């Protein structure tokens, strides 16, 4: 459950980092691919080497989806409906991987923000990413 203050914190972070959406998203993906090599199996169709155009563009896509979702957390089910269908029926990603990506996104934010990534912000972000992942996996079965 996210408090009003936490929701505001989350919106603020995603908005502030939007100018570097591709860098943050790409770094989170790269950390995930390197720490958890099994996750690479879903990307055999892309060039996911560091700093590749595919990695940056895909990273940006994911970041912007996370940013968009944060603007109306109460209605994630509506906002994410098309992505839910896509992940469930086309991508069919093993849902436990959402947790791995969330962890790497949090590590990326920590590296980027240093001390400003406070425990309270970390908690809020972790809750948001869990909620987002849960909604994304809703249509899997």
């Amino acid at each position, binding site marked *: 459950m996210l408090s009003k203050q936490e929701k505001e914190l989350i919106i603020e972070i995603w908005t502030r980092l939007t100018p570097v959406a591709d860098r943050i998203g790409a*770094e989170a993906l*790269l*950390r995930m691919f*390197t*720490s958890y090599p099994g996750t690479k199996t879903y990307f055999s169709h892309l060039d996911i080497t*560091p700093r590749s155009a595919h990695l940056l563009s895909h990273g940006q896509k994911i970041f912007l989806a996370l940013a968009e979702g944060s603007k109306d957390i109460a209605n994630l089910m509506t906002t994410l409906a098309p992505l839910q269908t896509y992940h469930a029926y086309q991508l069919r990603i093993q849902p436990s991987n959402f947790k791995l990506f969330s*962890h790497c996104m*949090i*590590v990326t934010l*920590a*590296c*980027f*923000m*240093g*001390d400003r*990534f406070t*425990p*309270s912000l*970390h*908690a809020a972000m*972790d809750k948001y990413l869990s909620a987002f992942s849960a909604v994304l996996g809703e249509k899997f079965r």
Partner: protein
Amino acid sequence: MVEWTDSERAIINSIFSNLDYEEIGRKSLCRCLIVYPWTQRYFGAFGNLYNAETIMANPLIAAHGTKILHGLDRALKNMDDIKNTYAELSLLHSDKLHVDPDNFRLLADCLTVVIAAKMGTAFTVETQVAWQKFLSVVVSALGRQYH
């Protein structure tokens, strides 16, 4: 037995040699108690854990965080036999402290985040991989004697 490359050993040794045990230990345990509040169940005797501010100001938590971090020194000194190094501690956590071993992973994640925040861009992808490998071996060893 876990195989470590020279590069992995160097990365892990480097992190420890630059570590401020008091700062990082305190921050990691506090972060765990704040981000994963159910972990507070094991700290009933540690005084005021009412909210993030009181947790971060709690001297007993700070001291315990430092103690936990020093506990990792054993793994550092015995990287080729972490499993047996923690056999006794594992039994302690199981039989006396009754800690759900899944919580070790949560604390490990918080430690990773605190170190990442401290090191910034120096916490490279390769650093993360080596560091997480080290922690996952420790976490596995700590959960091994549960029965």
